[in-house]
């Protein structure tokens, strides 16, 4: 199952769950999985990616969980399975498993989603927030500011307005009304311990290595007690090159029209 690639793995295996890649994969969110896998390998860890769809059992180890956005139909397909897993997910979150939930799964990680016609769909309540359906989409390039991660660069595309409960920390702050969680309070996303929810596509992680490395560091510290990369010079150089390209892509993206 977790075979070791000959070019990496001396620092240990990291088991990454890609949650619902079949139905919650829209807008390139699989780029997040690719980014985590590549960076783990370049830090000297052996990434093992587990694609978990409805009905699939959890792998023996879960070190990180990545979930993406989906259409309404995709959300309907996974909702029963998500509730069946809700207790496990809450336990993982409480135990410090880093998670990144984009868009649709971010919404379902909240308390509930109220559709335009007033129907209330329950979420699994890991992030204390709720979402209200709207008939206008918030859509476009977005830069948000975070003390922990610096500027976060991405592309939002959602019609739900998400409101965080008092005391819940947003992932970042946005400059303009009409953008972010709800277009009103200048927040975007949420972070609860090691769980990040956000509307940012792009994909998010390739252009935001600081968040990628936060997820990786949290996963390795939780499993092995510390983050100790075992890199060859080549891997370190390659990571540096990737991050230099990411910095250029960030600079361009930050200056593009909405």
């Amino acid at each position, binding site marked *: *199952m*977790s*075979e*070791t*690639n000959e*070019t*990496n793995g001396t620092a240990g295996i990291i*088991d990454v769950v890609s949650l619902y*890649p*079949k*139905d919650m*994969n*829209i*807008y*390139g*969110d*699989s*780029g997040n*999985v*690719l*980014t985590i*896998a*590549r960076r783990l*390998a370049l830090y000297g860890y*052996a*990434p*093992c*990616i*587990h*694609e978990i769809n409805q009905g699939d059992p959890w*792998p023996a180890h879960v070190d990180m969980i990545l979930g*993406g956005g989906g*259409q*309404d*139909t995709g959300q309907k397909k996974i909702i029963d399975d998500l509730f069946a897993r809700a207790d496990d997910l809450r336990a993982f979150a409480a135990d410090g498993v880093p998670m990144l939930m984009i868009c649709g799964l971010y919404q379902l990680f909240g308390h509930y989603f109220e559709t335009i016609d007033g129907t209330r769909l329950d979420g699994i309540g890991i992030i204390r927030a709720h979402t209200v359906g709207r*008939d206008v*989409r918030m*859509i*476009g*390039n977005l830069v948000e500011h975070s003390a922990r991660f610096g500027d976060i660069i991405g*592309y939002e*595309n959602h*019609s739900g307005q998400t409101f965080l409960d008092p005391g819940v920390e947003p992932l970042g702050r946005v400059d303009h009304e009409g953008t972010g969680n709800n277009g009103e309070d200048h927040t975007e996303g949420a972070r609860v311990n090691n769980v990040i929810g956000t509307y940012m*596509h*792009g*994909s998010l992680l*390739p*252009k935001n290595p600081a968040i990628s490395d936060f997820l990786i560091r949290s996963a390795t510290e939780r499993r092995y007690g510390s983050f100790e990369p075992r890199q060859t010079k080549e891997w370190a150089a390659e990571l540096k*090159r*990737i991050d230099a*390209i*990411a910095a*250029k*892509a960030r*600079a*361009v*993206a930050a200056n*593009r*029209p*909405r």
Partner: protein
Amino acid sequence: MMTAHNATSQTSTAVRTPSGQAASRRPWSFATPLIGKAVRKAARLAHFGGSAFPGKIAESIDPGFLARTLGQLPLGVVLVSGTNGKTTTTRMVASVLENLGLKVFTNPTGSNFTRGVVSALLDQVTLGGRLDADIAVLELDEAYAVHFVRQVKPRYCLLLNVMRDQLDRFGEIDNTARLLSNVAEATTGTVVLNREDPRIAALTDVAAAAQSVRYFGLDASLRSFFPSDDDMATTVSLPGVAQGVASSKASDAESAANAASPVDAALAAEAVHSPSGGADSGLESAVSGELPADVTLMAVGDHQATFRIDGADLTTPVRLEGVYNLYNAAAALAVVRAVLADIRRDVADMSGTRGAAAPTGPDASAARVTDVSQSDTDALLEALSTVTPAFGRGESIDVNGSKVELLLVKNPMGFRLSLASFPPEGHDTMICINDEYADGRDMSWLWDVDFTSLRGTGVAMVSGVRAWDMALRLEYDQVPVAETDTELDKAVERFVTANPGVPKHIYCTYTAMLAVRARLGHMTEVADAGVGR
């Protein structure tokens, strides 16, 4: 989004039947062609590019112009829409009908919105407002198609597929399917649907009011080549990573590299991408196989294709490359056959009542229509065999002795199909990614394309506004990139002049394609593909 709600509240104002009277004609409308033409000329002189601007003027002073002008056509309007392949397919339908002997009005490539059609009409109508054509074949963007059918009811519609494309414009693919269901509903004659796309095939339900529904389809042996958009995430491979699920991808990739022909290679490459291989991947839907297809693409070879029509497998030479283009050819044949069936019926009806008299329209048109009614399937395939690729679909330009192929990429599936159809070995590769409105602002889609097929040859040049996003994407797929330069003009020039004699592939988004063609136009002769330079 902008169209979803309008789409559902459409009404049928200003709609007319081909023989009916114009609705809501304004007193000054007789002058519309003159005013429109004058604006068009002025716009050109003033270097506005003159494509949609005159249409805008004509639309606002005479909203009935479109319906009135297209309403004269004796054979009505064929509307082509869908996410991928509109331009190629529209060109094929128009060329085949023309080759058979009809006079066809069609909109130039890229002006796939209503004003573009109005502008093109202004160019061709007489000052008296007459359009000298038998039939119109129009390519319309999904959202504009809805706008269009509010004004003009097409007699035929050809709906190709619904894929993720510029989602920042339409929202979601299920929403895009809803836009197209409006088009199917508004069609008065025949609705032609892609049997292998579940969202399109399902439109048969809303087309009940139309006279008939036809399908075009793929033989089971080719279906794995068209993975469903819904399979996308599971088809992006994670190179150099131990996967939780066992996979035989390496050996599949090897067989792709060793395959004899480009088509074999493409098919094998696709097999690599399919998560579970054959039958349950691809666009194959639950309904597929139960619906009889009017035209089925059975097999593809080197510049030849086999179609099953009326129970017979017919092989024909083609000038188009790639299984994807040939599936579009099946779509084009299906709609042309629907047009021919109506022509034959009308001619037979007329000859029954009035001897050899023409069905409709002026004499010249009637004579052409009567001639075309004699066309058999062989004539149809012969007409198809001469169609050449459209703008950006394998268009080939000679630059200083190097063959440069321009490949338009707009969405993940289209990009993947192009990569699979044009193996990189023996070629230099350049990728140009812009993010203007027409390209789509969101770069997320690049992460749904698997670029690992370029790992062996690498990419010589990456350019466009979002060159660094593209370079980052390639980096994560471990594809070597020789040079990245956001200055597109300079990058194109360096790329095409390097390694003389080595053929080249340039993958471009829409606005990048326009810029690349313009640059190449300064260096060599570039044919006008209907979009201007």
